């Protein structure tokens, strides 16, 4: 299986999986802050339920898109130690591939009359 095959088998990616990857691009987060981050980043448009997120996290860890980590050394929350998630190089590639796919889709749509005349 080539590297590209490894990426392609994830495409198209479920929207919430893509959101999770996007949130983890720059930082490691635990589940709660991940849900908050997605909500903030999408201006409240996407608010995921905990079951959805954790089922996705578990699957994505098994598929090698994410790894569990101990998180930043100074976890200020003070509560019990939580599990953090970090994106893997594969996860990054998959996110990028999905981004390209969506971008191509956008271009295709733009070439049609689908959204013409709609408010920009």
């Amino acid at each position, binding site marked *: 299986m080539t590297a590209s095959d490894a990426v392609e088998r994830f495409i198209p990616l479920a929207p919430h999986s893509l959101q999770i990857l996007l949130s983890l691009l720059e930082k490691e987060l*635990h*589940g*709660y802050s991940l*849900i908050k981050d997605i909500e903030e980043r999408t201006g409240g448009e996407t*608010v*995921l*339920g*905990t*079951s*959805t*997120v*954790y*089922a996705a*996290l*578990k699957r994505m860890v098994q598929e090698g898109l994410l790894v569990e980590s101990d998180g930043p050394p100074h976890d200020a929350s*003070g*509560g*019990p130690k*939580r*599990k953090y998630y970090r994106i893997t190089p594969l996860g990054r590639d998959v996110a990028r591939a999905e981004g390209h796919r969506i971008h191509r889709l956008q271009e295709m749509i733009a070439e049609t009359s689908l959204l013409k005349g709609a408010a920009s």
Partner: protein
Amino acid sequence: MSRRPSVSARFHAFLLRRLVPHLGDEYVREASAAFEALERDARARGPMHRLAFLAREVRSLLATAGEHRRQTPEPSGGGRGGSLEHLRQDVLYAFRSLRRAPGFVAVTLLSLSFAIAVSTVIFSVVNAGFLRDVPHLTAQDRLVRIFTGSRVFGRGPSSYPDFEDYRDLSQTLGDVAAMQTETFSVGEPSERTRRVHGLEVSENYFDLLGIRLVRGRGFLPEDVAAGGRVTVIGYNTWQQYFDGDEGVLGRALHLNGHPHTIVGVAPPGMVGVGDPLLVEIVRPLVSYRDQRGRRWIDVVGRLQDGVTTTQAQAEFEAIAQQLAEAHPESWSSDGEAATRIHVLSLREARIPEGAPMAAIFGGVAALAGLIMLIACSNVANLLLTRASRRRAEIAVRCALGAPGRRIFGQLLTENLLLFSAAGGLGLLVTHWLTSLLEGRLAALPIPGMEVSVDAGVAVFALILTVLTGLTFGLIPALQASRPEVVPALKGTTPATRFRLLGLRNLLVGAQVGGSLVLVLVTLLLVRSLSYADTLDLGHDPTGIATLSVDVSHREYSEEEGLRFYEDLLERTARLEDVDAVGLARWVPLAGGSTVYGGLEPEGYQAGPQEYVTATATVVTPGYFSMTRMQLLAGRDFSREDREGAPAVVVVNQAFVDRFWPDGQGVGKRIGLDGEEGYQVVGVVADVPYRDLSPEVMPHMWRPLWQSYAPDLVLHARTAGDPQAILPLMRRQVAELDPNLPVIGMDLMEDISDNATQPQRILSAALAGTGLFALALAMLGIYGVVGYSVSQRTREMGLRMALGAEPRRMVGLVLREGVVISLIGLVPGLVGAFAASQLLRAVLLGMEPLDPLAFGGGVGILLISVVAASLAPGIRASRADPMASLRSE
């Protein structure tokens, strides 16, 4: 710090573990922690956000579970996995089927949630009033209250020497404490003060009751010896006025113009033993400790181990005799009026004598119960109706082979889901109503009546809801799971006849009856409310500023006091903008008055057990014209009515009406305990002093110069803004005696507004409740008549086919609606009659059997019934004759 997860988080984890088993414990734990944190956030953002959060979580859980099932191969056989899958399907199916009936869901949710909220709040208020144990007391079943009274006067207060005697003489009581409720003016004398409810207590008060202060200490004998200028402040006062400052102990707080040192902070929600008002200030009882005849304090004691209230009562009978011999001047031994001591448990003592309050509270509680009844029968009816509408759907599922068990389970799930939602929404509405009510109550002159939602009450309402849901949701479910498949599939129903006393009609009858009670009560209260607005106060409080002083704080002699007040009147009268001035001991509707007992009105033959009393207040000449009280006969007081001149009195019309049937007051004499007493020189139109009840008590006014009192209220009338002259009035006091504290400053108008406010609030709340009940009943009637019509489309169609006119069809349906409601009308009228008798005490200026309210109530209800039956009637008149002929 490791905490136990919240109940909802644990439930979420439970479901997640069952429905998405492959997630694994570790992930479930993480998810549940995130769930809890998110729920906390949502809760902080308000109830709607929380609701949205929970809905999202349920969706997310179901979707994840569904995905999980699609990806894992079906386990063979039913087993646990199978029943869980059924549960999931049932929940999804219930969601879908409820979404298809938005009207039904909305009506059920609205009626149940508001009914839960309204009845929970009403019960909570009643509870706060007199059912609940007094908070913070230790072993309160061992506490008793001791009243000094007589058979005629019942439970009365005691004097401080009485209290000391009880404490010293009693063997059955371990210890005895004294207390007195008091309104304090809190704040620096130079600012506008705040009036709060509080207590004056003996030193052992907190120890005896077992109240644990949250900061500091209670009172010590040394505090009293030093003049008692110390205070324990209420928790609210600590939080609101001192921002919960830990260094509050030792700080000074001005009470009635004097600085007091704060020595302790009371626990939150502390109320007095005898009333439900929050106590914000407690200070030692220091005044009048040596006046045996001045009975104004409450006594509370703790029973020794093994002693019963009855034994204590027996002991106090003996103590009373002993004291009557020792102090004949203050212990009457005169037959029925003989001074007695009553020992009552806290619970007994809380139910007022003659119990008008108990009646009101009981009545209000009954109304709350009625609301639940109406709402539940409403929903029961809706459920019955819905079940029969779904006969076809269920028959299809049966025909396709669904076992009855599954259909039953599915209907059960649907009902549970709906009723839990109604319960949850009900709690939210309760929360909202309570905060609304608290805001209102804070505006009362008696601040701090504590209304917290009682968990027990809320649980009770919830259980009632779920029981309704299960009972009425499952009866049709049982029926429906064994339907006769063929007629149901044909879209017909077995011929139904109109059965007057069927379950459904009885339910509607109950609703109509209950609503009639509520509507009538509503009308009575609304009428009474409008009466309160037009009530003749007997005086004109607008434009009058008042300021209270008590020269006993400076230990003036009577002569000094009189001179001070004379100077104060003169100075105030000279102020620019002040048109008239006067002094009075009591202000109408401010809640206080002196009671004179043992009166002997000339020519009046008192009954053998009658003890003639009247309320009284001291005033200065010109007071009547200043307050615009109307002098009906005789004259006002004058400067000549002094010490040494004949003792004179002005009485109100009620006094004349009560004692002198000839209607002549002026010139008569009123004896006092066998002495000569006073001569009546004037009669003034009735002025309500104590409260707004329509029966004004006999009242007397006495001139200040013949009946000195050290604590008086200075009144000044202005054509301008009375608020503006308050500081000027204060300055006059300060210039006469810079060390004399001003106890309070009020506008007279505020005082009378405050007095009418409790009635306004109660009436408004009940009026809202009544309207709500009426709407519920209309919905119920609409539902049942509509259902009955839908069941009989065949019959209607046949009638039409046989030539019945549409107009007559409408008439037929209307008639049925009215007949159904008549079932409830008679019991409703009886209930309304009983309720109106209970409400007698709060109905101002009207008879409980007000014909307008009763006629109007029945009228409104019948109109509602007709309105509710109209739509189904019109539908019936449009029934298609062909459709019903075809199905035959």
